[in-house]
């Protein structure tokens, strides 16, 4: 047990995590490709044409996984941030910082695809649907986190301040989601729902799950690449970074 604890803390130091991340990244890219190819094949060729919405519905294979990921990633980011505050490990803050842009991208992607889907379905690019509105506010929360970290020069302070914001955000996300839903029902919002496409075929569900897995793998690969860059930037003054082959070259 104690052995395992030690090795955990070993990998919690940026110096040991840097090469480990480097070895993991190709695997996650490979998995992204595998899941992505199969997922796209299922969603374009296997899943049946929807009898109500035609071919246009196929955008949900991007939209729904992106929306899931934007929410998951916020929780993952807040978890790392909270760990960083509680255990005072440097890597946790770097992980949170590395995840934020991908989370913001996912939130943006879900808004954009939502708009593309909304035009043929509702006849408008933007509808104040509860899900879309929540996604918009989640996007703002990501932007706030990134802006706060960017505005603070001292990296350790930026990590800690960002961590508090992420934790406050994670408490608020369910409240915001609930309040927006409440607001939506009060104002008699649209009854068509993106994720609850009527009589969703099993193959559609499979397509979505495969695409969600591809998005997961992509997010991990990108976050690890980004965290490697952050480690290099923050530890640039240390000996081990100067000794790295890629830095010498």
């Amino acid at each position, binding site marked *: 047990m104690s052995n395992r604890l030690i090795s955990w803390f070993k990998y919690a130091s940026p110096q040991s995590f840097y090469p480990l991340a480097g070895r993991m990244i190709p695997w996650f890219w490979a998995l992204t490709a595998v899941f992505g190819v199969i997922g796209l094949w299922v969603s374009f060729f296997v899943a049946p044409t929807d009898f109500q919405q035609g071919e246009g519905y196929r955008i949900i294979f991007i939209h729904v996984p992106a929306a899931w990921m934007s929410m998951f990633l916020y929780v993952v980011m807040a978890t790392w941030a909270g760990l960083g505050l509680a255990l005072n490990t440097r890597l946790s803050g770097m992980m949170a910082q590395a995840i934020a842009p991908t989370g913001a991208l996912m939130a943006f992607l879900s808004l954009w695809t939502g708009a593309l889907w909304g035009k043929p379905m509702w006849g408008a690019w933007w509808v104040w649907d509860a899900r879309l509105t929540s996604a918009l506010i989640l996007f703002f929360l990501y932007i706030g986190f990134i802006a706060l970290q960017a505005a603070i*020069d*001292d990296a350790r302070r930026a990590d800690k301040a960002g961590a508090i914001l992420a934790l406050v955000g994670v408490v608020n996300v369910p409240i915001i989601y609930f309040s927006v839903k409440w607001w939506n029902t009060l104002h008699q919002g649209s009854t068509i729902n993106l994720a609850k496409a009527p009589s969703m075929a099993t193959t559609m569900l499979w397509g979505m799950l495969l695409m969600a897995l591809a998005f997961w793998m992509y997010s991990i690969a990108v976050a690890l690449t980004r965290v490697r860059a952050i480690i290099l930037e923050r530890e*640039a*003054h240390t000996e081990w970074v100067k000794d790295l082959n890629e830095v010498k070259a």
Partner: protein
Amino acid sequence: MLTATGLSCVRGERRLFAGLDLAVGPGEWLHVQGENGAGKTSLLRILATLSPPAEGEVRWQGEPVTVLAEDYRRAMLFLGHHGAVKEELTPLENLTLAAQLDGTTLDEANALSALMRFGLRGREDLAVRFLSAGQKRRVLLARLAVRKATLWILDEPFTALDVKAVDMLSGLIESHLAAGGMAILTSHQSMPLPNGRILSL
């Protein structure tokens, strides 16, 4: 007795000092010296528990200050670069409010006599905004006189003071030490006080 062992401080990517030990006993004072940017203020802020040290520990009467928390803060008085004096309030209001913030009460007569002692007679009802830089520092010194603390941590207390005020402050520190108090301060001037030690960063 204040002791610190193995203190180190990192600011950004620079290590200001490392492996620093110090001890101050009753009646003693410590003069922290060093060039600009050597970490004098950082050391004082660590000793005052305003920022945590990167490594090492500060103990008060043998107990870690992080454990003592408010008991330590009650025994300690910290005066930083900024005086914590509100420009819009009068010296008298500043003094009584600072005392209330410290968890004590200060009656008006005591506050007035402290202000008079520091040459602020007739200024007690004027907003601090209208006082000169030296007079503002004097308001702070009056706070030293009224606050009962064993350990004084003073960052550049002689800045902006005229000769007379410097003497007054030296006298104040001397009587504080004579009564068994302790002091840690930074200053560019040399200080003719007994029982002093110099710590060079």
